[in-house]
């Protein structure tokens, strides 16, 4: 099925924070157009995985590949300019800058400045609320609106791969569903999505495949539907009680 070059690949990645072995011999493969989620409990290394992709954390061994090229050791700037962007955990907007300024910073590395206005319009179509708040400080928005701006900011970079760190964290239940719909829509538009999520049921319901991370090692890897059906996983990670 996947005879194409993976857009993102981990080959035997090990990450240490000082003496702590955070990621242990991690192998991941993500193909263009996929929506993959990474599940796991607290401190299992999910965020570290995303930071390693972006070059914000350097692996002690192993290689990160983007489009089949080894990018291990490249700076975040280089990796972002290859079309990989992240929506950070807790959104991390520039609270004291306006929504418009936030969106513009998202496009910081783009050289096709003329296309920015059109892209912004596209984001307004997706999130009409963002347009209403354009000149407001990002910090004054509600959680749901902030999430929209965070996603919009990431999309302003015109990413081919979107990394999402706990997109549903801190959102009201009604917004969580809406948020996953948006992620699905972005994926349908052709952006590869790699998402870290604690809300495993929701994440798997829109994902193609999933990885399960346990204290730095991948313990399960399967299609989303198989993972959803997996009894052990349901008990261990999906928080289901008999």
């Amino acid at each position, binding site marked *: 099925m996947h005879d194409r070059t993976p857009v993102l690949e981990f080959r035997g990645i090990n990450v240490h924070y000082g003496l702590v072995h955070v990621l242990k011999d991690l192998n991941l493969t993500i193909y263009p157009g996929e929506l993959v989620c990474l599940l796991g409990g607290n401190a299992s290394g999910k965020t570290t995985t995303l930071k390693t992709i972006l070059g914000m954390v350097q692996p002690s061994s192993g290689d990160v590949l983007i489009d089949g090229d080894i990018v291990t050791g490249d700076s975040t700037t280089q990796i972002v300019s290859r079309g990989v*962007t992240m929506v950070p955990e807790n959104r*991390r907007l520039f*609270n004291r*800058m306006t929504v418009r300024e936030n969106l513009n*910073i998202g496009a*910081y590395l783009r050289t096709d400045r003329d296309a920015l206005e059109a892209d912004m319009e596209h984001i307004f179509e997706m999130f009409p609320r963002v347009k209403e708040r354009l000149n407001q400080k990002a910090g004054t928005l509600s959680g749901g609106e902030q999430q929209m701006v965070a996603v919009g900011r990431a999309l302003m970079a015109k990413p081919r791969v979107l990394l999402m760190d706990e997109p549903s964290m801190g959102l009201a239940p009604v917004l969580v569903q809406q948020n996953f719909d948006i992620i699905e829509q972005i994926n349908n538009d052709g952006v590869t999505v790699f998402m870290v999520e604690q809300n495993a049921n929701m994440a798997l319901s829109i994902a193609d495949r999933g990885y399960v991370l346990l204290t730095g090692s991948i313990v399960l890897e399967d299609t989303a539907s198989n993972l959803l059906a997996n009894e052990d996983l349901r008990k261990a990670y999906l928080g289901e009680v008999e």
Partner: protein
Amino acid sequence: MTHTLEQIDAPASSTPSPVDWSKVQKWGVLGGLTMSFIAAIGMVTALDQRLIISPWLSLGFLTLLWIPVVFGIIAATEDAETPGVAGDRDVISGLVTGLLSGLFFAFFIVIIDAFDLTDIFRNLGPKLVELLTFGRGVGVAAALWIISCGLLGLLGGTLKIAPRMARSMIGAAAMSVVGVALLEIIVTDITQGLRIEFVADWIYALNGGLTPASALVIAAGSALFGLRSDGSTLAERRLERMNLDPEVRFRKNVVAAVLTILAVIFLPMILGGLTNDLLANVGLFILMGLGLNIVVGSAGLLDLGYVAFFAVGAYTTAVLTSPLSPFYTPGWTLNFLSLEGAAVITIVLIMAVIAGVLVGTPVIRLRGDYLAIVTLGFGEIVRILFLSDWLAPYFGGAQGITNVPSAGLGPVEIRGTSSQAMFYLIAAFVGAAIYVAWRLQASRTGRAWTALREDEDAAEAMGINTTAAKLTAFVIGAIFAGFAGMIFAVKVGSIFPSSFKLLLSIIILVIVIVGGMGSIPGVIIGAVVLIGILGGPTQQGLLQEFGQFKLLIYGALLVVMMLKRPEGLWPNVRRQRELHQDEMSQDAWLMEESSQDKDGDS
């Protein structure tokens, strides 16, 4: 409109609520303490010879007498928000606050009269007692102080409820009398420049200070001026300006800019040497402030060793041009129209960049407090290197480098002693620096700095090269300071390590903070207020009398600014909005809390 916790707690009722005694008590005691403190540090004795209105009021007494008035206003202020109660209680609050302060201060006088404390507090001796008791015995003096402080407090409380017009008239009158009296030197200097010395002769008494007649005229004149204004505050006027039509505002800005440029060109011709020198010093600090503003205000990197770059610029210039330096090449001076001059400028630029990179690279990975501490260390290391015996053959150690020749513009010599020429030179550099700083703010780099200041991790995730952005800020800041150092070297003609102490870094930082972080006009205002009015570390300000208390006033100003106006005197528009939003959301939260409490009680 700010709400305080007390306000929310106070029951909002339609009947005039009683005086808030705890607040009156607090400010009364604080007032007495402040007065005692000011007397104890020797301000009153030191400034007694400096007259404001000859022979009745000296600056020394003025440093005490403003306290009951201002604290009376503060103690009375609380009612302003509650409708229908402005009136008696404001006046009573003011009166009682003043009386309390007076009582406290009278007690202080009794104590220093009864005990000789000069062993511990040098100033608390007979001289102070003599001054504070007017030579009439402690009992009479104590009563006098209590009564007069009470009256001044009453004045404060009354001012609070007086109509706006009256307040602005009285305020204008008081400010201008004190202002004109304090600016004696400069006014005399200007009138001499204009050849109308007789005006100054009439205004000022022979032994300094205004004559009673001129004080009256000035007070009346400025009160009339206050009558003309609609009593709106500066902040309101600024807000008005901000809401203007962009086109109108642009036109107004252009007019203001043209007027400023004309003033910069023509004022030095009118002003005397003293004033020009003062303005030149202010300009030098503006130059450095603009540089540090990029580092601290825009990029958010707290650099406490900024003086290092100033030193590098000054020493580079001195080493290249002083005949006493081993690197001296005959003919090398800072002549802006000669090849040698261009070479000096280029080398200063290169050295500043190198210094910026050298200091910047190792510290760039540090954040916040750590960055501040390490840069502080670097600043000191640079000074100690210049001071060291090891490098004394090149930099002269503690003797420094003397005989730095004056700058020049072609055949015209810009002597350090000619304050007018110096002013033009510095004004040119400041103009260029303002332009560069302004363009940078709106640039892509400027946006990267803002993002960096807001959230470094998120900025990095957006693909901003944070290391490069920080280093750029450091290097640009270093260049500004380097050029300031270059001008400083030719201005004073001799360079010593002691000119580059930590204090200088701190003062530049205070300029940036007081003016308003990240704001270019703020830096200018900050430098004018601090350096122009109070004076720099070695430079005289307008209020030379306060020289020995300068650092105390800096400190007090900084504390008051941080509490009351953290956005600075002329804030960056962005930052002002930020702080006020925080304030409002904080208050909203308090309101919510208190309303919940009430619900819980009922």
